[in-house]
């Protein structure tokens, strides 16, 4: 077998493992399990149709507005830059997990492949994986624009080639950073802590760049997204706009735009060559760097050095538990494992603190550059001031908007919806121990709920600091969010219990690539939409603020109690079935 063929085989195996194709095929066709997922996934795709339709309409309108000024390319730039920025930001986790924490490395390293070839094959799998993300963002824009503008074949051919190149540069940039970072992390004994701090620093760095760009854009020419198309056009086309600044910061988005828009012309082909040339160069740089640093960063990474220390009799006596209740022991286990596993911590507990922090950061930085006025086109628009102005005199709106913010910050994360999946191969312990499934589910519920409550609390602090929500409104909003949190936590846990993903080799799969997390988020959005329509019906029926809140509290309390009780019953039924 030639080396190229061997790399091809590794890539194919990586793809099958990444998308779980073999398991999916076995479960659907052989075991005939999970068939209920097929219509559900279909339904989820149908749910995206209105969103796609919205994008198509937006692109059409933007094209109509920008075409007379010859600035329609800005639409393409926006799509390409958004896709690449997303990959740059979130690709970090994928790259670290795939290059350094995936268990297939245990059998890839002994293969007769060079480090650069192993990394190249893993890089190829991530790139192919990212085509899905890119397609979701870029395809609606590129296709709509192509159809509306009645473009020639050069546009379509180049669009395909640009699409294929698009994830390579951002992923290569992240990979180069990660390979260097991991080489130094592996020098340290506190690897987990360094991975966590390194990830947070990279994330904060990316946010800081975004905030700095936003700040300079808003301070630049005194114009921002306004309420009408003229302001939006100015935003997109002015030489000092956010877009051109981002484009200058990350030129591949601009090359991609020119390559597609200019088709087979000299400009189009030159930019296409530039895009693919730089992609190829960066890919080569990864392979070269991998030869030198990959295995040095990797080997021994999974090993944790421990000190050899015999406990004295007194120490042992102090540290041997005098007997906690089973629920407390399970809660403690959940808490420790979640917070000691960097991938779990970053996607669970950290998220509930991060979202309010981003909110405060954006609002504070934006405020520095804005006058704070509420105005139309041509003046500064402060979204926070706008929000406050819209809500003033409407305490119900303030309470509900704050409650929604707190609920989203607290409950829309993967803690509850991966609680069983996170146990992975260790689930046998939960099945073996003499603790009733409902008790185990209770302990897990309180762990997930505590994370949600932490999110509600931080979001409350953010809302009070930025939006100056008063204590009575804040208390009411917190009450509603904490009640809703019970229901959403129970729903998330029930979804994960229905189809726990236990056979993962990489912790990333248990939480970040777990379909249950996505299904739970969709369910949460559905529930919150239902609550919204319920409240609208109540206000339309003429009920006052106190009455609406009373009904809402009572309704959420009833639903939460029912959801919690149903979860415990489901746990009793489901645990014995999980094999």
């Amino acid at each position, binding site marked *: 077998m030639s080396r190229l063929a061997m790399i091809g085989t590794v890539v194919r195996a990586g793809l099958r493992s990444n998308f779980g194709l073999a398991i999916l095929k076995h479960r659907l066709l052989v075991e005939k399990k999970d068939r209920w997922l097929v219509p559900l996934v279909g339904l989820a795709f149908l749910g995206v149709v209105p969103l796609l339709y919205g994008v198509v309409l937006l692109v059409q309108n933007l094209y109509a507005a920008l075409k007379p000024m010859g600035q329609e390319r800005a639409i393409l730039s926006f799509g390409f830059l958004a896709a690449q920025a997303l990959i740059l930001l979130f690709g970090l986790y994928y790259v670290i997990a795939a290059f350094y924490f995936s268990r297939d490395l245990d059998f890839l390293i002994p293969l007769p492949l060079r480090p650069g070839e192993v990394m190249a094959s893993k890089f190829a799998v991530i790139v192919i994986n990212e085509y899905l993300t890119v397609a979701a963002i870029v395809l609606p824009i590129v296709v709509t624009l192509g159809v509306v503008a009645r473009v020639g074949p050069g546009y379509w051919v180049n669009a395909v080639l640009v699409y294929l190149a698009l994830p390579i540069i951002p992923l290569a940039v992240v990979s180069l950073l990660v390979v260097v970072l991991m080489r130094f992390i592996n020098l340290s004994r506190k690897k987990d802590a360094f991975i966590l701090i390194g990830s947070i620093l990279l994330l904060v760095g990316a946010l800081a760049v975004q905030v700095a760009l936003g700040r300079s854009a808003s301070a630049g020419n005194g114009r921002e997204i306004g309420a009408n198309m003229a302001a939006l056009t100015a935003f997109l086309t002015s030489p000092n706009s956010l877009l051109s600044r981002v484009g200058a910061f990350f030129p591949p988005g601009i090359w991609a735009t020119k390559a597609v828009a200019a088709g087979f012309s000299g400009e189009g082909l030159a930019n296409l060559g530039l895009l693919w040339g730089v992609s190829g160069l960066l890919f080569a740089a990864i392979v070269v760097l991998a030869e030198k640093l990959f295995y040095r960063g990797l080997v021994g990474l999974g090993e944790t050095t421990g000190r050899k220390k015999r406990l004295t009799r007194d120490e042992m*006596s102090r540290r041997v538990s005098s007997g906690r209740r089973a629920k407390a022991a399970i809660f403690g286990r959940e808490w420790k494992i979640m917070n000691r596993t960097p991938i779990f911590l970053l996607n669970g507990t950290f998220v509930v603190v991060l979202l309010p922090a981003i909110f405060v950061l954006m609002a504070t930085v934006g405020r520095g550059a804005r006058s704070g006025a509420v105005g139309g086109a041509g003046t500064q628009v402060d979204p926070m001031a706008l929000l406050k102005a819209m809500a003033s005199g409407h305490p119900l709106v303030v309470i509900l908007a704050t409650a929604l913010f707190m609920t989203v910050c607290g409950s829309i994360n993967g803690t509850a919806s991966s609680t069983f999946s996170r146990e992975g191969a260790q689930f046998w312990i939960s099945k073996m121990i003499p603790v009733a499934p409902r008790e185990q589910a209770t302990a897990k519920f309180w762990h997930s709920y505590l994370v949600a409550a932490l999110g509600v609390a931080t979001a409350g602090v953010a809302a009070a600091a930025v939006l100056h929500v008063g204590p009575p409104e804040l208390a009411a909003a917190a009450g509603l969010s904490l009640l809703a949190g019970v229901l959403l936590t129970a729903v998330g846990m029930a979804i994960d219990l229905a189809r726990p993903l236990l056979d993962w080799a990489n912790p990333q799969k248990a939480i970040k690539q777990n379909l249950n997390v996505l299904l739970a988020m969709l369910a949460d959005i559905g529930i919150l939409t239902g609550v919204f329509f319920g409240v609208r019906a109540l206000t339309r029926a003429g009920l006052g603020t106190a009455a609406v809140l009373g009904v809402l509290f009572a309704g959420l309390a009833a639903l939460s109690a029912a959801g919690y009780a149903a979860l415990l019953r489901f746990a009793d039924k489901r645990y014995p079935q999980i094999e």
Partner: protein
Amino acid sequence: MIELTHVTKSYNRGRIKAVDDLTLAVKPGEIFGFLGPNGAGKTTTIKLIVGLLRPDAGRIAVEGLDIATRSLDAKQLTTYVPDFPAVYERLTGLEYLNFIGDVYGVPKADRLERIDKWLEIFELAPFVSNPIQSYSHGMKQKIVLTAALLPAPRVMVLDEPLVGLDPRAAHQLKDMFREHCDAGKTLFFSTHIMEVAEKLCDRIGIIHKGRLVASGTMAELKALDRTESGQSLEEIFLELTEP
């Protein structure tokens, strides 16, 4: 005591029968060795006994308790050691033992005494404050064994417990097996090491293609020998499990 009565378990909607009408009883005070080729149904049988799998048909009882209807009571009396020591790698050895002690309700005095004893025997004492992640395969196996011994269970079920252990630990484990059963408790374990089964077990069962093809004391198994040439367990095993 462990009783399996006409137990059947199949996979892929009945297409693969892993355990086929298995009837078996292990008495108190008995070490029962369970042998069989790869894929014969050993691990499936063990997982059925400890409740990790549900049988399609038949009844399983531990100390007279039907595990389908009184699973928690049965679990309280049983501990299990899997063939691969998958444990909470982010906990320290002591945290894991504390967790097991808590969920089985082991009193502190007993807990201290047993942890002390088994950590010393398995030479794990200097490492008990370290994360399990830092343990070697053998050390992980030993911490799982210590956890399984901590509740002093009436019934122990072990899947290939000697794999990964160094000779000293394996020797001590075999002593523990004897000690456990001399106290009137039950021990059921699977192994591929014929010599261990022959020397250690009070009774041996041989499973092949999901069916129990032989069961009894070593003497009873030798009586099955049609050639009367005084075969070893290995020869009997090979004869009974011919493909």
